[in-house]
């Protein structure tokens, strides 16, 4: 991490020329135990979307700047685009698909509809996973706290006011 970004091209070619070795990975995803094989450079986001067809989690910026890829790992919200899947071996992952289902909405999903807390909806799964993480953390007490602690989720439609209303309502009900 501290040296110049020089590259040993011969070594890089040697590494690239080898057959791709996948690594075993055990995850519990939305309550279901999964035994997987992944390449070490696969991010948790790409694993969920491309290999497991859990496309509720969105890829926005892919650089940890927008929050659309937010999922819960052992109950804590993180950006899944910046996690190598192999590095969370053994963890319990919850995505938007694990929070609610059609006909059986999670209280946050219902509140987002009730408060008109989205327009295009692309950021919404990340917003809702993040809001569940916020509630789990228990550090927010009022609207100002909710606004600050939801700042890792961008909404380019600008539905922030209604998102804060929805999160605040569920937070206060669950308190």
């Amino acid at each position: 991490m501290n040296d110049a970004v020089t590259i040993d091209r011969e070594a890089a070619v040697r590494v690239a020329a080898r057959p791709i070795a996948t690594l075993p990975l055990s995850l519990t995803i939305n309550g279901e135990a999964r035994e997987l094989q992944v390449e070490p450079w696969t991010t948790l986001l790409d694993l969920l979307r491309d290999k497991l067809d859990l496309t509720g989690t969105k890829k926005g910026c892919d650089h940890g700047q927008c929050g659309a890829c937010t999922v819960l790992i052992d109950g804590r919200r993180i950006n899944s685009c910046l996690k190598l899947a192999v590095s969370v071996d053994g963890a319990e992952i919850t995505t938007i698909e694990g929070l609610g289902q059609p006909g059986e909405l999670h209280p946050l999903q219902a509140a987002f509809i009730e408060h008109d807390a989205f327009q295009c909806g692309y950021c919404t799964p990340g917003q809702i996973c993040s809001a569940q993480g916020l509630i789990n953390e228990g550090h927010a007490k009022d609207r100002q706290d909710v606004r600050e602690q939801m700042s890792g989720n961008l909404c380019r439609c600008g539905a922030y006011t209604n998102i804060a209303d929805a999160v605040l309502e569920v937070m206060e009900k669950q308190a």
Partner: protein
Amino acid sequence: MIRFDYARPSDVAEAVRDGAGDHVAYLAGGTNLIDLMKENVARPLEVVDINRLPLARITDLDDGGLRLGALATNADTAYDERVQARYPLLASAILAGASPQLRNAATNGGNLNQRTRCYYFYDVDTPCNKRVPGQGCGAIGGVNRIHAILGASDRCIATHPSDMCVALAALKAQVQVTGLEGDRAIAFDDYHRLPGDEPWRDNNLKQGELVTAIDLPAEDFSTNYTYLKLRDRLSYAFALVSVAVAMRLEEGRIADVRIALGGVAHKPWRRIEAEEAIKNERPSDTVFDTAASALLAGAVGQGDNSFKIGLAHKAIVRALNQAAAGTPQSQTDKRIR
């Protein structure tokens, strides 16, 4: 991202052996490294995942200080009851940075070792001496709103992006590291370095050395402190200028004070003479103006960032007033008082 080999050692000695070669990167929270790898700025051929090492605890030290494990997350550190009670400056600085998602993943060791967010460093199609020695610096004479006004060189004007480290500098933390040659402790002021002729070196770690902990001294700065961060939006943005102040008042006079700046240099910026100049004085705008002038002496703007010199001066005076009054900046209510 290029292909790499992956190792996941379970103890520190094994990790240090794995980390000894060329083109090796230690992976902790990944919030900066994975991003750099996606951009092909970091191209390790071996990634040593250190998340299984037993370095995530926060423990009391015998001398009354506190040891922050290198793998404790930024969130676990900021919300730790001992950190909140005894080192609120540190908690405040951590919570001023990034987003809750990032703080849940990012670790203390990783915070120290994160790299600059200079646009040119990140863009492999532009020249950067930090990325490729001798290539030139795109930021000098380029777009440089976020760049350094202090301690820069003609090779590099990048800034260190951390908020946490600014508080650690003011608290005079010590960084515990280990390597094949054994353990050593590095004073925080000596951990990061100025770019000089070797801008690719962000800090004074030797190749393969691993941060294991950050030690906080026992000194009490839990009453008169502040972390004041100024940025382009109210949350989830890097500092243009930030100020950490740790102060101790005795009978209305400044018995001890540390002032560290973020967003202005290649490392958290302290000057002992600026602190010494106001010791034993009574807090006042005039006194604080003296400290600000001493801390910013020799500051040079690059064009887009020249506003930082005046902004930093006012921010230092305001932060010293906040600390002296015992009214630290809230990281939720962003109004500056």
